[in-house]
């Protein structure tokens, strides 16, 4: 028998009150844990996915939408841009590299991205199996897509028009899987990569049904040569005027950051947006919501602290006799003080551990509900250093809630208590 065990026995002697207080505290701490985890991973992931992309160029519209669609593949594209205008831009000496992208199709919610080899190279992607695309309609699957669809190299599937599930299928040409990418934990995991030509040819087939936001135009096309190799860098070759959706640009020097966006926004029919600028704007907007949630968590923690205080204080009234008995069998005032503090601290420590586990479980549930979104690529069982601070906060709550009850225990007069009966 020791003080720890005695405190523990007292806690488990009142399981409902103890349980309620632990749970309330855990709930508050769980919210904070989830916020911590999401904020940390989201920012990291956002920065990782945007690394190496200095500027995104697309049709006029919302710059944030352009970034979300072009870099993170979560929003709808703003529209199309003519390729000859894009090619003009690539001749600008401020541009180091330019990656063309054609969007607009999906397979079961996973986006099909028409681009060149520079795009996977930008993220340092490695092939797990097979090779990169060489001919029209050859595709490479991101790791997540491969797992979810179960496709291997050599399998064929039909893409659907639009970027969400449930649109009509392009049934004229089947995509054929030629490669699978290694899992890198970035945006490529959720994408299906192919050549820009594949996207064009898909939309050429059923010209009349297409809506105007697709990447195709509806003139008469030359016969498609499916055996012809596609462009692996730079812009695809085309005899007619074709459209693209977005361009990812790398600057040649810092001067470009000042001149290029202005040049594009005022001198062309396209718009340019900087991922880092737009994302910090987005986080600023989200910040209000995060602050609100944090406030809510603090209120819940405060209430649970009050609950612990009331529970300790009430149980102290019932226990004044017990405390007097403990004094009578040799316990000092200091030991009783410690006993009450230990109870508060144990209670909050349990709450902290439960809260952190609960937070990770919440996140896990959120992730498993959103497998194709950005949230789907978060990790629920990563533990951060800040979580130790959560334990510290909880213990501070425990100590604060126990101060008054512990002092009352310290002050208890044994003789008075024992002769009251």
């Amino acid at each position: 028998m020791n003080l720890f065990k005695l405190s523990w026995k007292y806690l488990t002697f009142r399981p409902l009150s103890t349980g309620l207080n632990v749970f309330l505290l855990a709930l508050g701490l769980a919210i904070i844990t989830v916020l911590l985890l999401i904020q940390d991973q989201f920012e990291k992931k956002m920065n990782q996915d945007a690394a190496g992309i200095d500027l995104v160029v697309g049709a006029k519209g919302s710059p944030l939408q352009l970034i979300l669609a072009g870099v993170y593949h979560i929003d709808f594209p703003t529209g199309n841009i003519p390729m000859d205008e894009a090619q003009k831009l690539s001749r600008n000496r401020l541009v180091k590299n330019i990656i063309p992208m054609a969007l607009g199709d999906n397979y079961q919610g996973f986006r099909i991205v028409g681009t060149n080899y520079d795009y996977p190279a930008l993220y340092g992607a490695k092939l797990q199996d097979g090779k990169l695309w060489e001919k029209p309609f050859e595709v490479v699957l991101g790791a997540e897509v491969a797992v979810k669809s179960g496709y291997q190299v050599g399998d064929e599937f039909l893409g659907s028009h639009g970027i969400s599930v449930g649109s009509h299928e392009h049934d004229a040409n089947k995509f054929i899987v030629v490669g699978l990418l290694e899992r890198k934990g970035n945006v490529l995991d959720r994408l299906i990569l192919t050549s820009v030509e594949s996207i064009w040819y898909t939309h050429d087939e059923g010209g009349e049904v297409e809506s105007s936001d697709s990447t195709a135009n509806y003139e008469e096309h030359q016969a498609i040569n499916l055996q012809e190799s596609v462009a692996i860098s730079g812009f695809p070759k085309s005899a007619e005027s074709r459209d693209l959706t977005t361009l990812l640009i790398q600057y040649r020097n810092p001067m470009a950051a000042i001149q290029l966006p202005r040049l594009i926004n005022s001198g062309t029919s396209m718009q340019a947006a900087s991922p880092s600028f737009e994302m910090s704007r987005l986080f600023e907007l989200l910040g209000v919501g995060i602050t609100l949630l944090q406030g809510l968590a603090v209120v819940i923690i405060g209430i649970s602290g009050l609950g612990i205080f009331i529970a300790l204080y009430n149980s102290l009234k019932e226990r004044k006799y017990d405390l007097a008995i403990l004094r009578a069998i040799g316990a000092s005032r200091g030991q009783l003080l410690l006993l009450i503090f230990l109870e508060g601290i144990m209670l909050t420590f349990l709450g902290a551990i439960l809260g952190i586990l609960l937070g990770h479980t919440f996140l896990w549930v959120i992730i498993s509900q959103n497998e194709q979104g950005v949230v789907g690529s978060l990790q629920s069982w990563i533990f951060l250093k800040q979580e130790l601070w959560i334990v510290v906060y909880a213990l501070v709550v425990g100590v604060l809630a126990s101060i008054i009850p512990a002092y009352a225990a310290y002050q208890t007069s044994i003789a008075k208590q024992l002769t009251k009966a």
Partner: protein
Amino acid sequence: MLFESRNLKYSHPGQQSLTFPDITLHPGESMLVLGKSGSGKTTLLNLLAGLLKPETGEVRLAEQNLAAMKGQKLDLFRGKEIGIVFQKPHLLAALNVKENLQMAHFFGKKKGQNIEQLLEELGLGKKAKSSVLTLSEGEAQRVSIARALANSPKLILADEPTSSLDDENTEKVIKLLKTQAAKIGAALIIVTHDHRVKAHVPNFVEVKAL
């Protein structure tokens, strides 16, 4: 001389001061403290246990003056050398029978008596693991006696230990107190107004309110 109290005086706030008769006891001896209710019997017991400080006088147990001790030292001395049996058992409800006795060892910082053996002797061998809430009144009082004996104290103080017990249990409890006190060579002081106890202990002092 094992135990001795001299010239004890105490006054509750706003009341007349009480003067108590002197008590002297050798190891194994027992004594009753008699008196009407309200005469200050329990106050005397609190003074003897070091739970209250007397205004004058001294309480000597094994060559030590309790009245001069303070704080942690007094608490520890009480835990080691004085066993107190209260009017009601006052067992710790969160613990089982055995754990209640272990608390005495822990706070008294003393190995004392073997708990299983002690419970066996008091006829509680089978109850060691029971919750104290399941005990009858008589059993609970015997457990509280076992707790008082657990550290083999030199002085056993009992405050009306039989007031809520029937005749059979009263006899059991008093016999237990006497035999156990004799066995460990402790002095025994029982505060009571219960005539059933007087038959067992011939020595007594009387506390009179002035």
